[in-house]
C-alpha cells in the first residue's frame, strides 16, 4: 500500500497528534537557539494525501478536525487504516461518513497481493477528462435511490458515490457515466454503508410509490437502456463478503450508545493514572501532579521578558511564575459493573434456571479475570431482590447463586426498578453499569404485588423507557422456548439488544453474553 501510494507520497498521521503537529507552530527549541522566530509546517498545511494509521483509535476531536479539513480543503485526501478487530470500536462515525471508498482487506495475505502500480499517465489523462464530464441526472437519481434502498441516511453517501462513478468513467476513457461506473460506485462507496439489504424477492420499499412526474427525461433513460436499481442493489450484495453487514452493524451498535457496550468502561479524566493527555494550566495539589517538562517549556519563552520585569532577580536562574505551572492529566477507564437480572419465576424455573445460573457463574469467573464488578438481581413471587450487591468476590457470588430458589410469579417491573436503582448507585460511585436481563418475558405481577397482567406490562414498559433514558446499555436474553413479541417490544423501549436463546446450555449462554458485551 505504501509503495503503491509512493508517487503521491502521503504524509503519515497517527491518532495522538496534537494541534501543533497538524497545523504547524512555533519551533520552540530552534527559536530559542537562533533568537528569531522559526516556524515549522504542520502536516495539514499543504495539499496532498494523508495517511491515518490506527484510525480505530482516532479520538473524536481529531476526527472532527479531519472532517472539517475534508469538507473545506478539496486538495487534501485521507486514507484511514482501520485496524480494529471485530469487537473493537471502528473509525469514528463523523470521519467514516466523510470518507468515500471502502476496502475490506480481511483475509488477504501479503503474498496474495500483486504490487500496486499506479498508471500515472492514465490518471493524468483521466483527470483532464473529468473536468469535461457532464453531470448526469440519471446517475444522480439512481445512486440516490440505491442509497435509500440500502437504508443509508446520510446524504454524503450518494454524493461520494457520484464522484466515484465520475472518476471511474474518466479512468475508462468514457465521456459519460455508464452502468459499469455505477456498479463500481455502489461496490466501493455504498455497499459497506448499507444498513439493510432488500431481499431479492421482495419489491424495493420505495418503488411502489408513484414515479415522479418531474424529470421524466432522466427516468425514461433509466428504464430504457440501463439496468434497474435492483441490479445495483445486487451489486452491493455481491460486493459484501458474507457476514460483513452483520459485523459492521455490530460495530455500529457498539459505537452508537455509551462506550460501556463496547467492552470498556466510560472514559474519564484522572489525575493519577491512565493514558496521558496534554498538560493543562492548574494548581498542584493532592490530586494534581506537576508536569515538569511542560512547565519548563511554558516558562522558557518568557525569560527575556521576565529578566526585564524583575531586574533584581538573580541572574542565570530560571524565572518561574505561578501561571507557568502545568499539571498532568490522564485518561483512564472507569470500572465496569455487570448487573445480571435473572428471572427465577415458575415459568423459567422449570426449564432454564439451572442454565442461567451456570451462565452467570461462568460470567462471574470471567468478570474476575477482566476485573469487572458483578451484581445479581433475582425476581420471583411478588418482588425482586438484590441477591448480590456489586462485588468482585467470586466465592460469595457462587454461594448466593447456588442457594437461589425458583418458582412463583414474574414481577418483571419490580426487577427492572431494582436493576435501575443498583445501576444508578453504581454510576454515582463512578462505575459504568451494563444490564443483562435473562427472562422469558411473561411479566404478570405489578409493582405493588398485585397479579394484574395489563398493569404489570405497562409498568415494565415505563421502567424500560426510564432505563433507556438513563442511557444504560442493556441486553435482554430471551430464554423462552418460543420467543414472544412482548419481549421484543420491551427491548425496543429499553434500547436493549434482544438475543433469543431457546436452547442454549450454560456455556452457550455465557459465550453469547461475552460476545454481546464485547469482551
Amino acid at each position, binding site marked *: 500500500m505504501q509503495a503503491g501510494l509512493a508517487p503521491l507520497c502521503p504524509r503519515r498521521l497517527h491518532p495522538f497528534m496534537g494541534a501543533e503537529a497538524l497545523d504547524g507552530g*512555533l519551533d520552540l527549541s530552534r527559536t530559542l537557539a537562533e533568537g528569531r522566530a522559526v516556524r515549522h509546517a504542520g502536516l495539514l498545511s499543504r495539499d496532498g494525501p494523508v495517511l491515518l494509521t490506527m484510525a480505530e483509535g482516532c479520538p473524536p476531536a481529531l476526527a472532527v478536525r479531519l472532517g472539517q479539513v475534508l469538507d473545506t480543503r478539496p486538495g487534501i485526501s485521507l486514507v484511514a487504516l482501520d485496524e480494529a478487530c471485530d469487537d473493537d470500536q471502528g473509525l469514528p462515525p463523523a470521519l467514516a*461518513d466523510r470518507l468515500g471508498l471502502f476496502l475490506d482487506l480481511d483475509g488477504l495475505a501479503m503474498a496474495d497481493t500483486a504490487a500496486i502500480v499506479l498508471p500515472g499517465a492514465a490518471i493524468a489523462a483521466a483527470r483532464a477528462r473529468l473536468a469535461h464530464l457532464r453531470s448526469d441526472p440519471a446517475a*444522480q437519481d439512481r445512486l440516490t435511490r440505491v442509497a435509500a434502498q440500502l437504508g443509508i441516511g446520510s*446524504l454524503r453517501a*450518494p454524493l461520494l458515490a457520484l464522484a466515484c462513478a465520475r472518476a471511474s468513467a474518466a479512468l475508462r476513457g468514457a465521456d459519460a457515466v455508464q452502468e459499469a461506473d455505477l456498479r463500481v460506485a455502489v461496490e466501493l462507496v455504498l455497499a459497506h454503508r448499507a444498513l439493510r439489504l432488500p431481499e431479492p424477492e421482495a419489491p424495493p420499499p420505495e418503488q411502489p410509490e408513484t414515479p415522479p412526474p418531474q424529470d421524466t427525461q432522466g427516468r425514461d433513460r433509466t428504464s430504457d437502456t440501463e439496468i434497474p436499481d435492483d441490479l445495483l442493489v445486487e451489486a452491493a450484495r455481491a460486493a459484501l463478503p458474507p457476514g460483513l453487514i452483520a459485523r459492521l452493524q455490530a460495530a455500529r451498535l457498539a459505537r452508537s450508545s455509551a462506550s460501556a457496550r463496547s467492552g470498556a468502561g466510560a472514559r474519564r479524566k484522572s489525575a493519577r493514572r491512565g493514558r496521558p493527555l496534554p498538560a493543562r494550566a492548574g494548581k498542584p495539589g493532592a490530586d494534581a501532579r506537576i508536569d515538569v517538562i511542560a512547565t519548563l517549556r511554558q516558562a522558557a519563552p518568557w525569560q527575556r521578558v521576565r529578566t526585564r520585569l524583575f531586574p533584581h532577580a538573580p541572574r542565570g536562574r530560571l524565572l518561574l511564575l505561578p501561571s507557568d505551572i502545568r499539571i498532568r492529566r490522564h485518561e483512564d477507564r472507569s470500572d465496569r459493573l455487570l448487573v445480571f437480572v435473572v428471572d427465577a419465576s415458575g415459568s423459567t424455573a422449570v426449564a432454564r434456571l439451572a442454565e442461567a445460573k451456570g451462565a452467570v457463574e461462568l460470567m462471574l469467573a470471567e468478570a474476575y479475570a477482566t476485573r469487572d464488578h458483578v451484581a445479581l438481581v433475582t425476581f420471583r413471587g411478588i418482588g425482586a431482590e438484590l441477591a448480590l450487591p456489586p462485588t468482585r468476590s467470586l466465592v460469595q457470588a457462587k454461594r448466593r447463586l447456588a442457594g437461589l430458589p425458583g418458582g412463583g410469579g414474574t414481577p418483571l417491573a419490580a426487577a427492572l426498578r431494582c436493576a435501575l436503582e443498583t445501576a444508578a448507585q453504581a454510576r454515582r460511585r463512578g462505575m459504568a453499569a451494563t444490564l443483562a436481563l435473562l427472562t422469558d418475558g411473561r411479566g404478570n405481577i405489578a409493582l405493588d404485588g398485585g397479579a394484574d397482567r395489563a398493569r404489570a406490562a405497562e409498568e415494565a414498559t415505563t421502567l424500560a423507557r426510564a432505563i433507556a433514558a438513563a442511557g444504560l446499555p442493556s441486553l435482554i436474553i430471551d430464554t423462552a422456548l418460543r420467543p414472544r413479541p412482548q419481549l421484543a417490544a420491551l427491548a425496543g423501549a429499553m434500547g436493549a439488544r434482544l438475543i433469543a436463546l431457546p436452547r442454549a446450555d450454560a456455556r452457550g449462554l455465557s459465550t453469547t453474553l461475552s460476545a454481546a458485551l464485547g469482551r
Partner: protein
Amino acid sequence: MKPFPFAAIVGQDEMKTAMVLTAIDPKIGGVLVFGDRGTGKSTAVRALAALLPPIEAVRGCPVNSERPGDCPEWAHVTDTTIIARPTPVVDLPLGVTEDRVTGALDIERALTRGEKAFEAGLLARANRGYLYIDEVNLLEDHIVDLLLDVAQSGENVVEREGLSIRHPARFVLVGSGNPEEGELRPQLLDRFGLSVEVKSPGDIETRIEVIRRRDAYENDNAAFMAEWTAQDADLRTAILAARKALPAMATSNLVLHDCASVCLALGSDGLRGELTLLRAARALAAFEGAAEVGRDHIRRTAPMALRHRLRRDPLDEAGTTARVARQLAEVLP
C-alpha cells in the same frame, strides 16, 4: 471556492429559519443544530457566513470595533478608517487550547524582542460575529466553562504575566452536533437561544434534489452560483429590511401574555425562555413584513426557542419536541 449558497439548501426549513432569525436579531443568542450526519448542518453554517451582511469596523482592530474610540488600548490601533468587512464567522476547533480561545501573550515577540504584547484569540476575532463549534457536545469541559463565562459577561478578561487585558466578546454561538455521540451540559444548552433538530430527508425526491444541487455546485460551479447568488442577495436584503423594521415592531400585551403562558405550561426553567421566544417571534414578524407580532409567530417559533429548555422526563419517551407541540395546541388554540 465560495461556500454553498444558503438559499440552495433543500428543505431543512426550521434550521434555515432559525439561522435567519439570529441574523436579524443577534440578541436571540445563537442556534444549536442537532441531528444526523450528512444533513447539511455544517453546510448551512458555512453558507450563513457568506449570506450575512457586512459589518462596519475600524481597520486593523483585532476585535472589530465599530468606532475608533471603542478599540481596546492594548491593540494600539492608530488607524481611524472605517471599512466594511464580512461578518466574522469563527470556527472553534475541538482540540483548541485555552490560550487560543482567550488570546495570550505573543510568544514570538516575547522570544525575539523581549516585549510583552497581547495576541488576540478566537474570542476577539468573533466579536460582533459568530462563533461556530462543530460537534459541540464533544467540547472539553474547561473550554465550555470558559465560553459560558464569556457568553454571560460579554467580555473576555485575560490576566497573565502582569498584563491585564479585557476586550468585548459578544458573539452569536452556533453549535452543531450529533446526539448519538453525547449530550450537552444543561448550562451550555441554555446559552443557545434556539435549537433545531435536523433529520435526513425521508422523501426520495427531496434527496435526489439535494444530490442534484450539490453535484451542480461541485461540477458546474459558475452556472450554479450565478443561479443562486441572486437569491442569496434577496435573502440578505430581506434580513436587512427586517433589522430595520425590528425596533418599531409592535408587541401587544396579548402576545406577552401568550409567551408567558406557553413557558409556564411547559415549565421551562428561568425566564430566558420567554425572552428568547419573544425576540424570535418579533424577528420572524419583521422578516415576514408583518405590522405586529401575532399568535402565529409565537406558535411557529416556540418549538425552536423552548425545546431545549425543558426538564427531561424519563417517563416520557416522546421527546421534548412533541411535548412543546402538545402544550402549544392546548395553550394557544
